[in-house]
């Protein structure tokens, strides 16, 4: 029995590893899983206060009177960007931290980057609870179109997987990748309209930003959930295609270099 080229056994293993990964983070902490909520909420509060002041309660052409409305707009971007940033930051140690699975047992190593992405997706799902709460108290309300959000997220997941596969493999051979991945995530954060809309920038910068598939995906998801606006399917298709390409390249690189892992770990 296979699904997406992954056997039943591997799915079980992936799920168990992901659960373990989530739990490992919070075992032996005082407030446990609440950290998963507390950190993003505090960051959100800070960003909301600062950026609503900087942009004088404006988001693009829209005047945003209530702080909760502003928070909702920022929150969606933070959630999507969070999936990317967390995965990329953890990717370089995905393989290196599991030497036993590389050298001592026969293990489908491709699951390890997938575990990392699953964990960051899990954190994103947790954040949905406050998001829905904020939304229902905001002036935007809940839109039925928001149910399409999972579909818009599929290319994002592919994109993140591609980068995670790539950095996970590279991290085995080059110890600098740790630093580089963190820097890369930071650069992407400012290239992505998370804390501000892309149209506050003049033309050349705006186009550069729009070229990033993640930027398109964040903006489309935001207008879908906040304003109930369906995406431009042409733009969506382009960003999905680029994401798929990143995924294929990253996966290919990972599978190509995988055999050499045992020689250097």
């Amino acid at each position, binding site marked *: 029995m296979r699904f997406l080229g992954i056997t039943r056994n591997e799915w079980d293993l992936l799920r168990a590893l992901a659960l373990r990964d989530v739990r490992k983070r919070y075992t032996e902490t005082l407030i446990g899983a609440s950290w998963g909520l507390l950190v993003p909420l505090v960051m959100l509060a800070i960003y909301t206060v600062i950026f609503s002041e900087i942009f004088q309660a404006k988001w693009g052409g829209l005047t945003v009177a209530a702080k909760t409305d502003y928070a909702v707009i920022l929150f969606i971007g933070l959630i999507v960007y969070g999936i990317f940033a967390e995965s990329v930051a953890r990717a370089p140690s995905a393989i290196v931290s599991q030497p036993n699975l590389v050298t*001592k*047992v026969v293990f489908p190593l491709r699951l390890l980057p997938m575990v990392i992405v699953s964990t960051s997706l899990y954190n994103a799902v947790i954040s949905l609870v406050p998001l829905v709460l904020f939304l229902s108290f905001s002036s935007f309300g809940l839109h039925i179109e928001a149910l399409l959000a999972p579909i818009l997220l599929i290319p994002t997941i592919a994109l993140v997987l591609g980068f995670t596969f790539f950095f996970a493999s590279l991290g085995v051979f080059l110890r600098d990748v740790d630093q580089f991945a963190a820097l890369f995530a930071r650069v992407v954060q400012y290239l992505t309209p998370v804390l501000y809309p892309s149209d506050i920038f003049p033309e050349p910068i705006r186009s550069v930003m729009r070229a990033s598939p993640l930027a398109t995906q964040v903006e489309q998801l935001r207008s879908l959930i906040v304003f109930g606006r369906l995406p431009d399917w042409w733009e969506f298709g382009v960003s999905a295609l680029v994401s798929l390409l990143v995924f294929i390249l990253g996966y290919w690189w990972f599978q190509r270099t995988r*055999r050499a892992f*045992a020689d250097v770990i």
Partner: protein
Amino acid sequence: MSSNSPVIEIDSVSKVYRVYEKPSDRLRQMFGAGVSASLPRRLSGRWQPREFGKEFWALQDVSLQVQRGEAFGILGRNGAGKSTLLQLIAGTLRPTSGSVTIRGRIGALLELGSGFNPDFTGRENVFMNGMILGLTKSEVESRFDDIATFADIGEFLDQPVKTYSSGMMLRLAFAVQTQTRPEILIIDEALAVGDAIFQKRCIAKLRSLVDEGCTLLFVSHDQETIRTMTSRSLLLRDGRVSAQGPSSEVLLEYRRQQHADESDYFTRVSLSQVAGPEKATGDGAMLIEPSAEVDLSNAFGDFDAHIVGVSVRDEEGKKAGYFLPGDRVRVIVAVKCNRNLRNLNVNLRLRNKEGVKLYSWGTLNQDIHRWATGDAGSVFWDESFASGDLIEVEFMFDCALGVGFYEVQACVTEERDRYYADQRMLHWQDEAAFFQVGMLQREYRFGGVVDLRMRAQWRGGSA
């Protein structure tokens, strides 16, 4: 796939390790080779890929075949390439050249608890381990009780693995590996940490797995375990196959090599005069018939002294091969010195047909006892012998062995220390002689391998 093709087929496999200065050199090596392979020949001839890292040949031209249901041993000193070979078979390493074909699901106990995560409980690790071995979650669930019963570590099952002793870790790992019923099971010297009872249980479990058709690959430094567990073995030396065949023969070769390696370190003293390399033949033996002459293919040593004959005799001194419990047995070992020697020790070992060593004793054992009791009158150790001398040592005992077939091994050693601390093997002889023990079932009987000469007393009763 036909059922009689070997489950493990290794064809002239070599493995080169490159010792890389930096992990990134491994990447450059891989893509250097990749680039030159993908270029057109005209270009690639000119473009010489740079070689990164130093080469180390862990295995060279190793071939072996293991049939379904066979128990196969792998022997070799540290660094001989045993672990590399096992990793190639397990699939965690890939050969540099040659091919490895495996037909069946592999379970491997390569290193103690290597698949375990120390922060999680035994229970969680059982599931993780089972799934790593290729089972689905529900398959592990259905076998969980068997695993827990076999591991028998009680409430520790729900404690984090980091709190386990190495013995408990082994119990759990072994239980998972065997209860998941692999078709090929690889055991790498892991059993040594278990306690005696668990080891016994492991051996019994391994036997029953082999009986059910599981193929066993066994690495151990314990020669007795190899001898009793496996039928065929492979001896590795410096990455090459040094011997392959029936385990008893391979073990002998292993011991021969161990001995040769030891004597390399042995600094020869008292080289007063070296006798010519005259080959000692059996002619000097007075009591020994030619038929008792030893077969040198089962021997190793420096041959500064030579066992020229070993014979088993009865009370009257006649050659015999069959004894009853209580019978006097005499074993005569004839040794010829090829140079001037002293501090000798002539030693016997008795082994049953399962290869278990039942008893070993030598002239030095007697000497030690005499020194201890102050009766140093006649001590073999003090005797000096000249080149060409023939010594006959007669060992006597009353047969206390159970029904069976017994092998006599004999050896002559030079002992520079009175208590076996510094020994040099002059001649070790396997299969020096054989004898059989029977029993008159209506006169005197006991069970097992040794007669403890028990007595019974009783109290009570109406008298």
